[in-house]
């Protein structure tokens, strides 16, 4: 008797395993295009949002540091500027 996964939940009978592979035509879809499409969009937006968030937080930290340094230097001469 052939045991299928639906009978017992798991395939436990060694005699039920596949012993040959037979090609089929018009078989069902193995990879869902919708799942791939959604994954691609989610991954792209996650990358982008991560980059934006990282930049935003870093900008905040750098501006705080600039304020601290300007405050410290305000009593001791001209402030540093980027070379343009």
């Amino acid at each position: 008797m052939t045991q299928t996964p639906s009978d017992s939940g798991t395939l436990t009978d060694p005699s039920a395993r596949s012993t040959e592979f037979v090609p089929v035509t018009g078989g069902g879809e193995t990879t869902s295009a919708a799942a791939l499409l959604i994954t691609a969009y989610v991954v792209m937006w996650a990358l982008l949002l991560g980059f934006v968030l990282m930049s935003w937080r870093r900008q905040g930290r750098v501006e705080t540091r600039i304020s601290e340094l300007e405050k410290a230097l305000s009593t001791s001469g001209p402030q540093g500027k980027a070379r343009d």
Partner: protein
Amino acid sequence: MKSQTDQLFYGLLAVTAAVFTYLISYVFLVAPIAQLQAGGLAQKIFYFHVPAAYAMYLCGTVCCVSSALYLANPTDTRDAIARSAAECAVVFGFMMLCSGPLWAKKAWGVYWTWDPRLTTTLLSVLVYVSVVVLRAFAGNGEAERKFASALGVLGTVNLPIIHYSVLKWGGNHPTVIGKGGGGLKSPAMTHALLMGFVAMTLLATILLWARARLALSVSRVARLEEQAIATGQLDY
């Protein structure tokens, strides 16, 4: 009160958000599904994948020009633009490298092949990654900046090779637009792709702007710290 530059930045951000909203809804609701050989529904990845590749080329070109200008006459602004362009090229490069294999799984049955275009693209992204890593971990000295600039120029030399690799060496990668391509057979597909290019151009501009501003602020911190050390306000 916000400065005029800030107002322009936020205005551009609002326009970009509107264009992306329109693009996503158009791609999912209006653009037709392509033939199964092209990935069927997964072909809709194309409307972001190709513009992301174009945005990487754009950022790579900006990186190359700024790096060359920096090598000729070093300034903080040129260095900041070159550095931010390399960072943006990495982001767009990864967007392309993540979306492409997901389409390939449906169209080709595998995520990756060592096709000439895929290989040259990976190489180019890795060059920009090396520029970013170098600037992040090797310090902010003149020598490091110059070395990163030289790498930025070198990375862009590879970009035309990516573009012409399909024509020169063949491979699996589709050639739909441009020389040798059959084109998009629906006006809705063409419209979606054009909107993708507009959206990615706006996004690349915004990201470059924001990152260049950040890089300039970092340079300013370095100069202020040098001054603070010289005046004894900060310990070395």
